């Protein structure tokens, strides 16, 4: 009994709680369209969130971490984002086993921690969607610091079996054999990152699967195949960041190739530059993408009978929901670090559909001209 308080104190010493939170207000200055849940009135409940993390040091080189996120927004995927063991056999090598965020692009694994970057929203054309935000598996990181350069190599593999919400739809995502390699080179104020990721994806959207089964059942195999959401997905990424006391520059180029109906082949990039006047910073960014969906087929005869017409109409209706497109956004914004763990941000973005199908706005009426100003304010906190 006498030693209990000491034991408890030691346990508490090895246990750490921390977290982050963001309150984001957004407004689309156009009454004819909606964008990612934002519309022509101020909304606080699209990107606001809170994350809590607990770390427990089991022994010297072994620890356990859990991170839970509570989100707002229509695509509310609240829950356990990270749950893993970290084992560091040497100072240079770190292994993580469990549920983790997939480090696809430069900001992918900490996109929820708004305090860690300057934008209110990450450049839309690069970070708008990716198929596998989390995976369950093993991640290894090896780091080497030379006299003038630093080099880090990460590799991971695992699987995903989760239900996600995407633009209001429920998607069952199953990815086998997801793996990737990331190399990061640091030289003076530059950081260069290059990575490759791939997985065998099987996405189920129930209504789409049911319709595809009907098509296959009556012999329209090509039409059924064109709606498939089973296949390979590959991501390529390259980024160059520069940062010193006065200036920063960031650019990232991404490429996605998939065999899935719902996910287009995409190329995207952003270029961003800014100035620091500590505790303030300002920036301007340009971001652009092109998205190409697989071509539809004309297999079902029209006019033969009413049932076939219904099938053909159903097929055309589905493929009309998607279409190749290109979009661009121009942003300016600023950040004020009010305290060491508290920052305020503001961002104004011109969102614009460039050509092709309407790809950027989630809702539009007939008079919408394909471009709108998007204003955001944010409070970012870590604790």
């Amino acid at each position, binding site marked *: 009994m006498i030693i209990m308080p000491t034991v408890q104190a030691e346990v508490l010493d090895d246990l750490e709680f921390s977290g982050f939170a963001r309150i984001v207000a957004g407004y689309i200055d156009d009454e004819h369209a909606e964008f990612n849940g934002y519309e022509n009135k101020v909304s606080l409940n699209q990107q606001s969130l809170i994350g809590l993390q607990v770390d427990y040091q089991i022994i010297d080189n072994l620890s356990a971490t859990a991170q839970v996120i509570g989100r707002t927004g229509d695509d509310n995927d609240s829950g356990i984002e990270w749950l893993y063991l970290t084992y560091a056999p040497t100072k240079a090598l770190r292994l993580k086993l469990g549920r983790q965020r997939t480090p696809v692009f430069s900001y992918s694994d900490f996109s929820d*921690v708004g*305090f*860690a970057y300057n934008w209110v929203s990450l450049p839309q054309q690069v970070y708008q969607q990716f198929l596998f935000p989390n995976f369950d598996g093993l991640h290894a990181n090896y*780091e080497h*610091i030379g006299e003038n350069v630093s080099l880090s190599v990460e590799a991971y593999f695992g699987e995903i079996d989760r239900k996600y919400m995407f633009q209001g739809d429920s998607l069952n995502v199953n990815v086998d054999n997801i793996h990737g390699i990331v190399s990061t080179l640091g030289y*003076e104020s530059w950081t260069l990152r290059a990575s490759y990721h791939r997985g065998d994806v099987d996405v189920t959207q129930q209504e789409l699967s049911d319709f595809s089964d009907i098509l296959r059942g009556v012999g329209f195999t090509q039409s059924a195949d064109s709606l498939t959401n089973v296949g390979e997905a590959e991501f390529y990424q390259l980024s160059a960041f520069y940062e010193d*006391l006065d200036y920063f520059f960031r650019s990232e180029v991404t490429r996605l190739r998939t065999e899935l109906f719902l996910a287009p082949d995409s190329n995207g990039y952003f270029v961003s530059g800014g100035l620091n006047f500590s505790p303030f910073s300002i920036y301007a960014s340009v971001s652009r993408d092109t998205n190409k969906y697989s071509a539809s087929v004309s297999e079902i005869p029209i006019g033969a009978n009413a049932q076939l017409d219904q099938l053909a109409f159903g097929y055309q209706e589905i493929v009309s929901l998607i279409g190749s497109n290109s979009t661009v956004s121009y942003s300016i914004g600023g*950040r004020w670090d009010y305290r060491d763990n508290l920052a305020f941000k503001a961002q104004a973005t011109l969102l614009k559909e460039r050509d092709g199908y309407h790809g950027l706005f989630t809702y539009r009426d007939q008079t919408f001209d394909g471009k709108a100003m998007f204003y955001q304010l944010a409070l970012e906190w870590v604790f």
Partner: protein
Amino acid sequence: MGILVKKYLACLVLWYFVFSTAAHAAQSVMVVANTGDQSIQLNRQQVRSLFMGGVIPYQLKAVALPPENHTRVLFNTKIIGLTESRIQSYWAQMRFTGRKRAPREFENETSLLQFLLRNVGATGYLPAGMDVPEQLTVIYTIP
């Protein structure tokens, strides 16, 4: 009673070390380690890596001063090359992606120096020109 007097004297000695050369200390910093190998000399990149959680080929562990501290501001400016805001952002990224942890922080130069003297491998930054106790080694000074 004797122990209290010793502690008092120890504090006085540390106070002397910290502030005796304050006039020279205002504009520069040096990096000091408690290491048996007094031949260790790092370059700026290695010091930067050590204090940003990177791996360097020596058994050294970085400790730091708090954000508002003048010596830390000089260290950020002359060695890390990033604003305090960016450094805080970086540590938020590292913590919540399970990569690295920020160095332990001490309230002021005196408590940091006490920690350095007591812990082999501990490495911290102090105002340049300050008298350093014999047990510690200056492993980097700004050219």
